[in-house]
């Protein structure tokens, strides 16, 4: 009895402590209940349509090699488990970091010997979403690779650098004013846990880079081009910032 009481007390003390440690919130927590329900129901989440397309692309032979993703990687639901949670990662061939979209494109061009996939195109988003789904519920786990450190530091510098006519940095909104509002929209903490997302405003799927370009246009800065090294560095930093949070792909956002 006494042991049980001590245990209960220890548990009571430990839980508020554990909650106080992590104040990070996913964009999911800022959404209305309707949007949350839409994301959680796989038969109502429009991102799952993209997953279905991704699954058939995974099994479709492409290019002069006539190989599909499945020819090498087998069953995607097994081999791709936790993969999206580790990206961006270091690419040995180029000596630079590469994001998941870039890796799929690289595989497509070099190993399948097929034409590359256009960034933000339907197929690229579908495959990324399908691979992303296999990590759903797993913690974001950026690779512990010292070669990525300088790139991550560059991402952090970009995150805190003011840009655009409005002269805002990412940090000013998403660190200092997270939880506040810009117009009627809540400002989330900017943890990229649900990408690629189905954004209701876009009425389509979009990658993290599309979202970042959106934000840059909002501060009236000239957005970086898709796949620009600056974006990969930012993605690296954001992944490290969200380390341990659960992957939600495919997320729904308003």
């Amino acid at each position, binding site marked *: 009895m006494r042991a049980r009481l001590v245990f209960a007390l220890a548990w009571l003390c430990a839980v508020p402590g554990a909650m106080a440690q992590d104040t990070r919130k996913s964009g999911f927590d800022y959404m209305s209940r309707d949007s949350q329900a839409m994301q959680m129901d*796989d*038969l*109502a989440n*429009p991102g*799952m*349509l993209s997953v*279905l*397309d991704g699954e*058939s692309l995974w099994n479709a032979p492409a290019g002069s090699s006539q190989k599909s993703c499945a020819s090498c990687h087998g069953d995607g639901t097994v081999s791709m488990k936790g993969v999206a949670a580790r990206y961006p990662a270091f690419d040995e061939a180029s000596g630079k970091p590469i994001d998941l979209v870039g890796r799929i494109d690289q595989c497509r061009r070099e190993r399948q010997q097929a034409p590359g996939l256009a960034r933000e195109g339907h197929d690229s988003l579908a495959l990324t979403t399908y691979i992303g789904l296999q990590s759903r519920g797993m913690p974001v786990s950026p690779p512990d690779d010292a070669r990525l450190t300088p790139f991550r530091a560059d991402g952090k510098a970009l995150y805190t650098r003011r840009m655009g006519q409005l002269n805002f940095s990412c940090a000013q909104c998403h660190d200092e004013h997270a939880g506040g509002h810009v117009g009627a929209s809540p400002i989330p903490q900017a943890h990229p846990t649900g990408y690629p997302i189905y954004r*209701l405003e876009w*009425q*389509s799927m979009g990658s993290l880079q599309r979202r970042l370009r959106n934000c840059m246009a909002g501060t009236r800065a000239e957005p970086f081009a898709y796949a620009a090294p600056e974006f990969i560095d930012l993605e690296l930093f954001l992944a490290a910032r969200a380390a341990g949070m659960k992957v939600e792909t495919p997320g729904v956002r308003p």
Partner: protein
Amino acid sequence: MARALLNVPAKAKRGDIIEIKTLMSHPMETGFRTGADGKLVPRDIIKSFVCTYNGEVVFSADLFPAISANPFIAFTTVATESGTMIFSWTDDKGQTQVQTAPISVE
């Protein structure tokens, strides 16, 4: 290729009210937007949705340009007997996408 997600209960008791949810992938282009070249993008929306249950129409809807891409349609019906539900979506291009779902009623 158009994709649809259907949520039809596989089993139901006779006389039960069952909820059916459908999600169809479609751009639902309104016909009011301009493309990069400044010209109007031609309208392409799903015009009608019909659900039949053992040949009888249990739900149908006419859709209009203000409806979002990938329309989600949910409705209820009464489980009467085992059989098939057939869902069909017809768009401005005249293409009809048909999906079926079995239902068993005890």
